[in-house]
């Protein structure tokens, strides 16, 4: 048995040093050689903590309370520090989330690869090591010449950096590898290449891989097995097909229901509430407060893992009762009646200091409809949205609001025009003033407009209600809110000036899937109730199908394809769109 198991985690628990509260507990996982286990969960669920523990590493303020981790036959947690150093990068290696910040900016990539080999005495001589580096670079499909190895990390693209990270991880032929969201932040086509490389290398070298991600579709595409984490515990695990076809834990079911899929037009469904941080977690099943099936027994102790059939197990007392969880959307998808054009762009070109990055873009966003503007990073989609919002200086062409020509910059536009177009930013953490209460932030445009204090207060309560937050939130500060709540506040602030057009720039990309689904749901409601015209800028193609009526695909500053989202995504005509869609992982496609 120990031969087949590449990685075995037994009853692992890690604590916060200061308080003794558990970050993760009761973690039991086994990965066989040559297989990939996908570890999913929302941010804060403890995925990375588990991943780092496999390398016998705990971040500052975190300690292993008990448990064992076997990489092959070696138990890694009990090793002394010199032995730990030896296994890291040798027996077990790590591929970090952000290659840009994980490669040392001051060192050439060749040296960063070489030092791993040197540290583990891999290949007896310098020649042998150099040859090994070339071999690795070839395996991850990068150039092998010396000039390339002399480059610094910033001279490589994101995809290339991540492949250097992979080369580094596989350099000493490890038997276990931990991949921590290695493709987050990469474009889909780059992601496809990186995933392919990972799959190839793990199979060829019989490596047990722990793949950490929040992206279910990537797991469906890549992994053999799945473990779902919630609040520091594994709540369900099994083979990929078992989990995705027949999720047993209510949390898993919600997760699957909330994941948009490029292969179908599905209405994604969110879930209210949020997981609690260590120390505030409820007794018993941590998911109980959000679970509609919860009963008193759930709140007594953490449920035992029960077999659901095959290799699938779930930590839920009702895992084997096929009780329906209300994950179906109650809302009908919008029926299509064409609205009047709200915003029209006619041959808009835009650039930065003389370099044109957007060429001749013409678009129409209609009242009550959502137009998704999709494209990979650098395609110019954000520049277009900024031009509409009057935030971009250098552009030509014409942008019309309700048939009226708009001035280039927001400052030059009439107040009514400025209020009519509102912008919601990507990062809910950076776009709210941390020193103002949420209510003050929302009321700001009203005060500028000269509204009385009590009048403003009433409006603030109204918009908070519209974004489904209680009025008490007006007195909170941004740091007291979760990411999803902040994004709701950002939307509320946009709504307060009663806009006709809402420009949403990657508003869900920093959020977990359940939260993303809830925000998308909210945006859909607002659009219908208020007749808002919405421009939804995103790189997330699957999401487009669930939110947008129309989609415009951008590449290298030009619109490649535009049309109803169903036909563009379901039956793309342009080669670029086709390649983009086929590169996007899909749960449904993988399960066929």
């Amino acid at each position, binding site marked *: 048995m120990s031969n087949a198991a590449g990685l075995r985690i037994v009853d692992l628990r890690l604590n916060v040093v200061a308080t003794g509260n558990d970050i993760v507990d009761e973690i039991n996982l086994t990965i066989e050689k040559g297989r990939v286990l996908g570890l999913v969960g929302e941010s804060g669920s403890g995925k990375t903590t588990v991943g780092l523990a496999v390398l016998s590493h705990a971040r500052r303020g975190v300690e292993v309370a008990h448990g064992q981790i076997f990489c092959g036959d070696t138990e890694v947690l009990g090793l002394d520090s010199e032995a730990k150093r030896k296994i890291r990068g040798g027996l077990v290696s790590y591929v*970090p989330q952000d290659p840009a910040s*994980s490669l*040392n*900016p*001051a060192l050439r990539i060749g040296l960063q690869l070489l030092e791993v080999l040197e540290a583990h005495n891999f290949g007896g001589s310098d020649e042998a090591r150099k040859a090994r580096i070339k071999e690795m670079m070839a395996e991850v499909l990068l150039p092998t010449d010396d000039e390339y190895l002399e480059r610094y990390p910033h001279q490589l693209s994101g995809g290339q950096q991540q492949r250097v990270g992979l080369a580094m991880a596989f350099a000493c032929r490890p038997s276990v590898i931990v991949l921590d969201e290695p493709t987050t932040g990469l474009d889909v086509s780059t992601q496809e290449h990186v995933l392919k490389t990972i799959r190839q290398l793990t199979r060829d070298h019989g490596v047990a891989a722990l793949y950490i991600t929040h992206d279910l579709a990537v797991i469906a595409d890549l992994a053999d097995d799945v473990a779902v984490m919630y609040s520091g515990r594994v709540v369900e695990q099994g083979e990929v097909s078992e989990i995705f076809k027949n999720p047993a834990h209510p949390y898993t079911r919600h997760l699957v229901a909330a994941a948009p899929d490029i292969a179908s037009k599905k209405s994604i469904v969110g879930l209210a509430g949020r997981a609690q941080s260590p120390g505030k977690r409820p007794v018993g099943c941590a998911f109980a407060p959000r679970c509609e099936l919860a009963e008193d027994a759930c709140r007594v102790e953490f449920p035992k893992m029960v077999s659901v059939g095959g290799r699938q197990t779930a930590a839920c007392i009702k895992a084997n009762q096929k009780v329906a969880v209300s994950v179906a959307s109650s809302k009908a998808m919008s029926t299509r009646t064409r609205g009047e054009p709200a915003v029209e762009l006619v041959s808009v070109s835009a650039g930065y200091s003389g370099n044109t990055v957007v060429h001749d873009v013409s678009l129409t966003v209609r009242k009550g409809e959502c137009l998704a503007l999709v494209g990979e990073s650098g395609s110019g989609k954000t520049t277009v949205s900024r031009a509409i919002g009057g935030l971009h200086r250098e552009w030509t062409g014409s942008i019309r609001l309700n048939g009226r020509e708009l001035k280039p910059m927001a400052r030059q536009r009439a107040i009514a025009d400025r209020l009519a177009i509102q912008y919601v930013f990507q990062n809910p953490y950076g776009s709210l003033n941390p020193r103002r209460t949420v209510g003050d932030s929302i009321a700001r445009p009203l005060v500028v407009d000269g509204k009385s204090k009590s009048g403003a207060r009433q409006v603030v309560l109204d918009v908070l209600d519209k974004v489904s937050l209680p009025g008490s939130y007006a007195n909170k500060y941004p740091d007291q809110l979760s990411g999803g709540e902040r994004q709701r506040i950002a939307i509320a602030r946009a709504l307060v000036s009663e806009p006709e057009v809402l420009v949403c720039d990657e508003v869900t990309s920093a959020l977990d899937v359940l939260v993303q689904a809830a925000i998308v749901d909210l945006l859909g409601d607002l659009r219908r109730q208020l007749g808002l015209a919405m421009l939804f800028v995103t790189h997330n193609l699957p999401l487009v199908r669930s939110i947008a009526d129309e989609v415009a695909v951008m590449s290298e500053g030009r619109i490649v394809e535009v049309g109803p989202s169903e036909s563009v995504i379901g039956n793309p005509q342009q080669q670029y769109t086709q390649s983009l869609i086929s590169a996007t992982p899909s749960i449904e496609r993988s399960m066929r």
Partner: protein
Amino acid sequence: MTLFIVSLLIFAVTQALPSDPAEAMLGREATPEALAALRADFGLDKPIVVQYGNWLFGILGGDLGTSYATSTPVSEYIGPRVGASFFLLLIAAVGSIPLSIVVGANAALRRDRKFDTTSSLVSLILAAMPEFVVGTILTIIFSTTVWQLLPAVTYLEVGAPPWSDLQGLILPVLTLLLAVTPYVARVMRAAMVEVLESDYVEMARLKGMDERTVLWRHALPNAVGPAFQVIALNLAYLAGGVIIVERLFNFPGIGSALADAVRSRDLPVIQFLALIIAGVYILTNLLADIGTVLVTPRLRTRLK
């Protein structure tokens, strides 16, 4: 360009000094005729713009003017003192840069442990004390009350090479060292703490690098870049701060020369010394920028 603006300011300020160099030299009982003759001799009767032009072109042409007080050319009077001061500064810099880097890096590495808390407390105290207090305390400890190990003042002839009285150099250098090191060490610690928390340092550990490699190869090069700027500011500050320290230890450098010159309203000397100190400021900052670019590949490769 910067130097030109500085030269203008220096000239304007020195001209605005109350009292008249001629009067300062000849004393209160001098006859008006003698004063006028001396002023004409110095060129002080000409319009200010002309005076400035003469001075500026003189400097550009290598003629620094003549000291009012000693009637020797400024270059001859100042030259050896500048050399001596630069020597002092150089030793202080060469000593303080590695010292502060080592102290700062170690404090960061042993964050919140004894070395860190002690070193930050000590550096805070040192940073809070003006140089002359530090210098006086050192004198009390090493040359007067406690031990009589080192001379309290420097016995150095003007023009003699500064290394001819090494014993006398120790206290001034030590004072300057203690004046600069705390600041730089604190900045170094902050930069190092940030770097040690970075993803690439964690990654270096996770790929099995030993702590020495992690520290020297992965962390330090990324931390010294920001520290360079502070080092430069402090060295430049030293160029001014040296005045007090030199007075204190009677070291024959630009500091004591400047103090004497101010007392006797020796305008050419004041102006030139001010210009030199400003030059040091600009030069060290330039060097820091170059140093930062050199240790930061992202900036370096952009030059190509």
